[in-house]
């Protein structure tokens, strides 16, 4: 079955794809921390920060539509949080943008700040995931000190989530093929519980067979991999460019926009 993978473009070849996963991860982490810590009134500077991940997306030849679609997919969770702002903080405030000025509330300001920061940080995250193979990202995280057990679990999650989605989809198709009338809430709930149970049992079966496959190939509890990560001159240039971009915005552009 074909899946809309989040790492659909991670197998392309571009200067952004060739960068070391550890470097990209650290840069995105620092960038995210800076964007989150921006004051809630800094909309102009927030827009400037969006240029960074946007440039990586362009450099990596990732369609903006793809990035925006994934932002929209995750947005409901953040929308709930953001829209709660106007409900509990109605303190009036005047906002000015060039020659225009209008009255609003602190709650709405907070709402737009959350949404703006969410979009910019998500763009950075999508730029990272779309230009880095998941296996390289895991290897990078392991080199950066993430516990091995956690990277193994993330690896299995990434490997089997698509198998699980396939199975769930097949179960839903089997149900749809035999469901000829509305069964009522209780019966639907019972069916859903049975479907989840079946999925759970099959997942356990898969885990057992995977364990056999691992043991058959000599696995004794110690996880061994070959590292292919290497820091190249391009990675140093990227670090320098990212630092220049962030520091330039912070010390030179931000004072003008406030």
């Amino acid at each position, binding site marked *: 079955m074909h*899946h809309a*993978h989040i*790492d659909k473009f991670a*197998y392309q070849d571009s200067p952004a794809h060739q960068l070391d996963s550890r470097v990209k991860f650290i840069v995105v982490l620092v960038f995210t921390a800076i964007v989150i810590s921006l004051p809630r009134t800094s909309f102009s500077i927030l827009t400037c920060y969006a240029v960074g991940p946007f440039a990586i997306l362009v450099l990596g030849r990732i369609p903006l539509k793809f990035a925006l679609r994934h932002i929209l997919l995750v947005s409901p969770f953040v929308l709930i949080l953001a829209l709660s702002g106007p409900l509990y903080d109605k303190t009036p405030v005047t906002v000015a943008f060039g020659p225009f000025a209008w009255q609003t509330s602190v709650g709405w300001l907070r709402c737009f700040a959350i949404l703006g920061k969410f979009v910019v940080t998500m763009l950075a995250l999508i730029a990272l995931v779309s230009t880095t*193979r*998941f*296996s390289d990202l*895991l290897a990078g995280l392991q080199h950066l000190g993430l516990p091995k057990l956690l990277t193994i679990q993330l*690896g*299995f999650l*990434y*490997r*089997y989530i*698509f*198998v699980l989605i396939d199975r769930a989809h097949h179960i839903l198709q089997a149900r749809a093929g035999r469901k000829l009338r509305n069964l009522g809430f209780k019966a639907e709930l019972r069916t859903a519980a049975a479907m989840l149970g079946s999925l759970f049992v099959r997942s356990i079966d*898969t885990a057992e*067979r*995977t364990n*056999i*496959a*691992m*043991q*058959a*190939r*000599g*696995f*004794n509890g*110690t996880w*061994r*991999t*070959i590292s292919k990560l290497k820091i190249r001159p391009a990675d140093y240039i990227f670090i320098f460019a990212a630092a220049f971009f962030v520091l330039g915005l912070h010390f030179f552009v931000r004072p003008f926009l406030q």
Partner: protein
Amino acid sequence: MPKAIEIENFSYRYSDGTIALSEITISIEHGQRVALIGPNGAGKSTLLLAMAGFVKGTGKVLIDGLQINRENTKKIRASLGSCLENPDDQLFMPTLFDDVAFGPLNMGLEAEQVKKCVTDALQTAGLSEMADKAPHHLSAGQKRAAAIATILSMSPKIITLDEPDGSLDPRNRSNLIKLLRGLAQTLIIATCNMNLAAALADRVILLDKGRIVADGDAKEIMSNARLMAEHGLEVPAEIHKS
């Protein structure tokens, strides 16, 4: 020289008491290609698991002269490679390279040796270009070949395959037959597909209800229409024509 597989009076029951295998006695020489045939539930997969030491019953199981026990496990895993029925169970690493390298790394080989093993195995399986792909990006035929590559990289003397042609189209099945015919190892293939068995095996062991019903020359057994029908099987098209 010890035999590839030697099983004497092996019996195994499931936890609910059902007899899965009963007094199995088999002797397989190195270099033989054996098809384990039989209807669903005959005990073929369980017998393969017993050969790899994953099912422990009564009786004796020797792999390349080594009795299956805790001390010999590592040596047995290196000489007998098991390929499971579903490639999704076999391919569990984020990339094909990592998956094929998993076995050699566990055997304690150096990084350079591992890379060579992986390159050779992928080349044999016709997947050299796919090394950096994630398993879920492979087609069913490629997944099957990749599962075999994960075993080949460990250079085992014996390879067991459980229903290797499951869900393959005719072209991929033909590619799989070509791949398996090109291997020098002892092959033990559990299958319900008589055409696959006829194409690959020189010896057939017919199992039903956990017992060996027939053991001998592949053509001789599979051309016996009455025997095959009695056990819910069919005469392969190739033998039927001739």
